[in-house]
């Protein structure tokens, strides 16, 4: 297991380098321009000067090399300095700067991380927690009314785009319900809100309800389908019959024997889904103004902010690769039959 993990980790390095190059080229070649969104009143010479100042016109390879150096060598050192108060001689070097905000990209990302984790993470958790029982019961009572309803609801959840469901709940809960009502929910997420006491916690809870539920609907749909399929696979296995033949209670049979086996693929699917939540929640973030990583990315793309797009996309790629690895390792840990060495 250990050597497997190490081996996979080593293998990720060239993969990631290659991915970074691909992303760089794609992003770089895209025709969007950092000055494209400026008002028309700004004349073209000025635009050209701005571009020059941003370093847009340097040769591609130089830019890529610089990016590599900044991302892999400079930024980690800066974080080490922050964390431990060391001096690693980063003082004079230029960090990875976003075109739009003229501030270090990594700081932007760090700033956005809490929002994204908070909302999207909770949604993932809630979605999973709802999905598992639905999946389990649907499988155990296959073709029952519950199962049919579960299927229908989860498929609708899968097919309704969040820009629709999001606006729908906003109209229902923020507009139709008077704002002094107990059931009123805020339509705009306050990212500056800090939880300090019960009241502020309640507010946080209320403002999270809608974005979390809209996102969770999609997650629930997928995971419950998957759980159901996995449970169904396992319910027909011979060992289930063995467990019954041993006189175990139905509850034990389903929740101990079958569940444990079914969870192996489900857990890995859940792990694999985690990186996608960072990028995948873009639309929901947009609808509820939860300005997280997704919104950062969209704004950066629209503004031709190459360093931000490049870095964010690459971080997503790292996350995907990492969670792939985690999923595999998890598989190995959960399933005693799998031995990677």
């Amino acid at each position, binding site marked *: 297991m250990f*050597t497997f993990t*190490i*081996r996979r980790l*080593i293998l990720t390095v060239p993969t990631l380098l290659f991915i970074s190059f691909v992303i760089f080229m794609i992003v770089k070649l895209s025709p969007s321009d950092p000055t494209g969104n400026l008002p028309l009143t700004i004349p073209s010479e000025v635009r050209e000067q701005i571009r020059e100042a941003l370093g847009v016109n340097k040769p591609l390879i130089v830019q890529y090399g610089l990016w590599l150096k900044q991302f892999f060598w400079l930024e980690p050192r800066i974080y080490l300095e922050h964390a431990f108060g060391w001096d690693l001689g980063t003082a004079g070097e230029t960090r990875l700067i976003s075109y739009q905000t003229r501030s270090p990209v990594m700081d932007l990302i760090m700033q956005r991380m809490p929002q994204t984790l908070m909302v999207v993470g909770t949604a993932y958790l809630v979605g999973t927690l709802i999905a598992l029982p639905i999946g389990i019961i649907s499988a155990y009572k296959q073709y029952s009314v519950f199962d049919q309803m579960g299927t229908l609801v989860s498929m609708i959840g899968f097919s309704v785009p969040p820009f629709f469901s999001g606006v729908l709940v906003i109209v229902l809960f923020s507009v139709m319900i008077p704002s002094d009502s107990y059931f009123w929910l805020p339509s705009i997420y306050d990212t500056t809100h800090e939880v300090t006491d019960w009241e502020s916690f309640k507010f946080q809870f209320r403002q999270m309800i809608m974005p979390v539920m809209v996102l969770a609907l999609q997650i629930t749909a997928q995971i419950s389908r998957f759980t159901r399929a996995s449970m169904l696979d396992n319910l027909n296995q011979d060992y289930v019959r063995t467990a019954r033949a041993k006189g175990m209670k139905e509850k034990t049979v389903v929740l101990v024997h079958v569940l444990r086996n079914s969870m192996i693929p489900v857990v890995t699917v859940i792990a694999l889904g985690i990186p996608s939540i960072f990028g995948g929640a873009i639309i929901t973030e947009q609808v509820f103004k939860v300005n997280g990583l997704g919104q950062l990315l969209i704004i950066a793309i629209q503004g031709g902010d190459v360093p931000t797009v490049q870095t964010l996309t690459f971080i997503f790629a790292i996350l995907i690769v990492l969670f792939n690895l985690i999923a595999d390792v998890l598989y190995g840990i959960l399933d005693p039959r799998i031995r990677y*060495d």
Partner: protein
Amino acid sequence: MLDTPKEPLVRVSNLKMHFPIYGGLLRRRTGEVKAVDGISFDIFEGETLGLVGESGCGKSTVGRSVLRLYEVTGGSVTIDGRDIAHAAPEELRKMRTQMQMIFQDPQASLNPRMKVSEIIGEPLREHHAGSAAERRERVLELMDQVGLNRDFANRYPHEFSGGQRQRIGIARALALNPKFIVCDEPIAALDVSIQAQVVNLLEELQERLGLTYLFISHDLSMVRHIADRVAVMYLGRIAELAPRDDIYAEPLHPYTKALLSAVPEPDPSVEEKVERIILAGDVPSPSNPPKGCNFCTRCPSVMDICKRDEPEFREVQPGRFVACHLFNQTT
């Protein structure tokens, strides 16, 4: 059938088939499964050589290597005087008409999405034997030969019973008029009441067409019925090879003895008298075979030398070959 000419049709010498195992940090080759580890035998024209042994001892691998369905690790196989193990692809393709195979699982060995006529006709089409109409005629002929109703030509395999499916497999093997057929456990997946049908059919065809069989099975009683000579395999090697009557009457190798004694007798009065040699323990893994004699971990009459030296496979009586240190003295 002892009057078979003494010229072997198939000659296998020191055949080795090792499957690599990869592992470690860089997926290096860390070992190998020695599925077949240096075996030699001849099969004479028109005879049936039975190959028996426990599951996983390498029987199927031998059968497949002989037909070069695997790229062998070492040794040579000649069929009808031509080297199979090292033939070039196109040459090999031509030689395939000479040698065919019948498979263990009649369900799995037929493509579920092809009609019976297509399955049987495939080798013909592959080797451009005749026009479509001629091929069709030949297919029907083959179906008659194996006792399949001509009306079934347009059905799919799943519409047949196990025994019928095995007949389809046999018809396919016969399509190109081969001389040599490897039967890899053709009856293992069949119900007792159907096994006999298939075995009888095979025997009948052999008589009629002068076929040569390598008959692989773990069912010792069936092998006794069909084979002229029998080779007993254990863990990638041949433990004993002898004419059928000799081996059943007086097995030499301790493993053969144990194997034969373990076969239950469907007759209580005989069964009671059978003296069982119960072997202890399980078969070692072929990736990590014991040092010395393969069988030394389970052998009831194990000696010190067995754990050190590998016994030689040699002729101890005329026509009887054994690989066991017990027979070192006898020549």
